[in-house]
């Protein structure tokens, strides 16, 4: 049991625990904060795989923007300013059943995959491999991902313009 495995198991337990608390806690703001904890644990998992840029970007985008937006939305749009409310969803057992079925399906699929039994860990990156410049090159080089990159930027600009238009107050 290497140190990395111990850390991974701990982080995975935290992730699952936080995820469980997100959906079971009654207090909406607490649920948003447990979501932040879950995202942070996912980030640690990503950083364990040496994808540091992705981990940092995940904190900046998810925790720094999306989670804060969640919290704002929760705080500003509660119907009657109460912290906790009755559980609204009488069909929750359907959701639980579907989740169990999906888990069983994934389990059955992965039974046939030998990758879980291989003892060697993830292949180490070649020494001196500059992740960031590789990522940068992939994003702007014409025979890599420049087209999805530009399309995503246009989509973001459209969302920004839409938000400004919806909120615009013509005097």
């Amino acid at each position, binding site marked *: 049991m290497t*140190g990395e495995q111990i850390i991974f198991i701990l982080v995975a337990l935290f992730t699952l625990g936080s995820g469980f608390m997100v959906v079971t806690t009654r*207090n909406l*703001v*607490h649920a948003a*904060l447990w979501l*932040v904890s879950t995202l942070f644990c996912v980030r640690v998992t990503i950083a364990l795989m040496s994808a*540091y*840029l992705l981990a*940092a*970007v995940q*904190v*900046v985008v998810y*925790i*720094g*923007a999306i*989670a*804060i937006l969640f*919290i*704002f939305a929760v*705080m500003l749009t509660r119907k009657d300013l109460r912290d906790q409310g009755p559980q609204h969803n009488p069909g929750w057992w359907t959701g639980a059943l579907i989740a169990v079925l999906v888990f069983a399906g994934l389990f059955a699929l992965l039974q046939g995959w030998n990758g879980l039994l291989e003892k060697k860990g993830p292949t180490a990156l070649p020494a001196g491999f*500059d*992740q*960031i410049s590789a990522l940068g090159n992939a994003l702007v080089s014409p025979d890599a991902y420049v087209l999805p990159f530009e399309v995503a930027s246009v989509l973001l600009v459209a969302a920004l313009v839409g938000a400004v238009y919806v909120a615009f107050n013509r005097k």
Partner: protein
Amino acid sequence: MSFWNDPLKVAADWLLGIFTGWGMPEIAAQILIGFLGIFMLISLLMVLDIFLVWVERKVVSRFQDRIGPNRVGPFGLIQPFADIIKLLIKEDTTPGGADRWVYNIAPMLSMMSVLILWAVVPLAPRIIGVDLNIGALYIIAAGAIGTLSIIMAGWASNNKFALIGAFRQVAVMVSFEIPMLTTLLIPTIFAESMGFNAITEAQDIWFVWLAPLAAIIFLIAAIAELGRAPFDMAEGESELVAGYNTEYSGMKFGMFYAGELLHAFTFGGFWAILFFGGYRFLGLEQVSAFLAIAVIVFKAFLGYWIIMWVKYTLMRIRIDHMLGFNWKFLTPLAFVLLIVVALMNALLAGTPTWIYVLGMFLSNVVLGWVALEIARSYSRKEREKVEGVVTT
């Protein structure tokens, strides 16, 4: 490698020898040495934080033409210790109806988000917590956690003023992250890496001469991120009692306050690293690591002094003016500056150094002048619209 050049490695090897001599497995010894290093850094930072309280109060008093604390100890040096003792023996209240867990965790998160910033600060050529190659992005990520702690504080206080203060502060912080990120990209372009060690090593000519406008925009965005005046709408004492830390008393308030001062000092340090050469000064850092540490601490204090100077000179800006300033002026200016710097960097790539420096400097000055002219004409139009209406 002698002790003066590389103290951390020498000390770590010596400790490793001692621990394995006692029979510890090597991996446990290395983890323990890592923890000792972290503990030492945080202890030094917290002691520095205490000293910063004294510095802040003396400097503000000089700006306000008075003397400041001078009763407790020589030059009032023991004043911060008296403050700490007072904060520690205060009653630890929690407002009724407050969210206990969130209320208590918020100051811890706020202090944590400042302390983790110091993991990437290069104190000397070989003394750095973690030489992350994405250092510049890491400090934005740490700022995101600080933002979260402010919302938690404002919300959990069960107090409308605290909530409004927290919302305003978070809106300002999230908005000013954009010009800060953009101007962080400019030293990245010059150094061709986001890691702070690489940025410091690439500053044969300080980046402030190459991109002065970027330094100014970074300073403004950093002051807004810190929540200090003139951007301290969140704790506008005249409007909001004390903003998000209204309901905090005792050491929890102390953590917010000391965390804010340490954050200001840290950003003074980052300003120095990114634009003023970090620990480099005329080759002093090659002589000894301790000189390098002295150089960077000196530059960080200089940056911190400038931040304090701005705070105690300018008036608070209204929240809508603050956000308008960011979205209508700073963000477009930062983007245009990034484009201009990238273009000039590519165009002047092969030229001798003095042409390069002069070209970049002049392009920044021209851009700043054009931006100010646009702002001035806009404000002239606004003033003319109003002047017809004023009846005094």
